[in-house]
């Protein structure tokens, strides 16, 4: 009689523990997906700023039409990219095009004095910082999920329900060489 009770209690405790572990894994996975979506939010904000930037510069820097077209093209490529690889490539092109714009602007003192333009530059710089922040958070969320999935009691539950180790926001090995080179400023 006593043994039956003990067995029942032990089984109930184990089931409760399993439920707790499963719920925790679900929360961590959703947290990570949320973080990934946040990165896209920042990227979109960056792309939304670009037309304003192009419009402001156009009035002052007639000679830079080529550069502006590069930026606009990079933006369209980024917005229409679907695979992660394409997204990263388009992101890099955008970054180097914007860097190019910064350099060229030095030659146009009128443009530098334009309040609108300086503000847009400030906003762009801030968005770069925000992108870095959300990527950091995405990596933290990924790390927490990976820890939970791989440590001992949880990995049994994880295996049963299809949770697995996820990738960080990393640049692919093939892309790494291109990124580690300084962005090319070509006009």
């Amino acid at each position: 009689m006593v043994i039956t009770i003990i067995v029942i209690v032990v089984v109930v405790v184990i089931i409760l523990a399993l439920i707790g572990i499963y719920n925790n894994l679900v929360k961590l996975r959703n947290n990570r997906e949320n973080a990934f979506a946040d990165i896209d939010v920042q990227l979109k904000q960056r792309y939304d700023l670009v037309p304003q930037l192009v419009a402001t510069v156009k009035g002052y820097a007639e000679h830079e039409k080529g550069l502006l077209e590069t930026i606009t093209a990079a933006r369209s490529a980024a917005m229409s990219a679907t695979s992660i690889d394409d997204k990263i490539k388009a992101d890099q092109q955008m970054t180097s095009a914007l860097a190019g714009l910064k350099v060229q602007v030095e030659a146009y003192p009128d443009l530098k004095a334009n309040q609108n333009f300086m503000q847009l530059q400030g906003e762009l710089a801030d968005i770069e910082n925000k992108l870095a922040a959300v990527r950091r958070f995405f990596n933290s969320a990924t790390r927490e999920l990976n820890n939970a999935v791989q440590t001992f009691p949880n990995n049994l539950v994880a295996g049963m329900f299809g949770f697995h180790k996820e990738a960080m926001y990393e640049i692919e090995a093939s892309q790494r060489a291109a990124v580690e080179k300084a962005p090319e400023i070509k006009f």
Partner: protein
Amino acid sequence: MTYVGIQTQIARNNWNSLVLLLMFPCIILGMLWVFCCIFGVQSTYDTYGNEDFYLDYKIINDTWLGWAPWVVIIVGIWLIIAYAFNAQMIQHATGAKPLERKENPRVYNLVENLCMSCGMPMPKVNIIEDPQLNAFASGINQKSYTVTLTRGIIDYLDDAELEGVIAHELTHIRNRDTRVLIVSIVFVGILSTVLTVLTRGVLRAFLWSGGSRRSNSKGNGGVAIIVVIVAAIICAAIAYFLTMLTRFAISRKREFMADAGGAELTRNPLGLASALRKISANPGLGHIQREDIAQLYIIHPKQLTQSFFDKLQSLFSTHPSTEERIRILEQF
């Protein structure tokens, strides 16, 4: 000093807040009982016509039971008001004003970006127009969490250093340190006020009763002195209680944990170290003379004028030494 993870820290702080909340009515009712004792001293005359004093516990307990519900209700209302308005009270006491993104995008963006990098909802940002360098975090729930910075610290530190300071304050909020701190500040505030009232009440009571009760002038002086001494001892005991409460709520460990959390958040411990260096040269907020709010600051200003209770509290200093904090941050 063992390192505990942030979840443990949060759980501990929540537990401490709860315990403080529960201890409080007990302490208030205890003080009420002592108060009843002081007033309930009875006298009889023995065969020689000398006065004899004793405590009739039945009368005392009945009096106490009669008063207790009212006291609890009054203190409860006070507590609710303090809870609801703690943010405004701190703002009022320090002269802090909210900071809009438009006014100072640099600071606002620093706070926003740090919050985004750890997935924390953004607290309010306040500014104090004071050239001295200091910063603190306050608030007990998401609606009231606030990071307050002085104009001096915003202008004097560069971006990396200011980021370190903000990260330190954000970690205090994340750990729920601010919650425990404000609960204890509210209590200590209420208890100090009640204590002052009681002390004055006791002194006045004996000045009056000296005239009406005693006929024997020799016994008059002796008894009055003894009772005043007893009252003073009781007040000192209660004051000790207050400081224990405060110590219980705040510990130096929290400051180290906040430094560590801040460094992890920014991935740059040297930023905070260099900020601490600059601040330690110039920390005090000149016009804030309240010791209890000073405990919230990033570096404890030593120049505050001190009342009796403050002197007791300063024996148990609530902030670790700045040199030690800088040393630990720079060892990486």
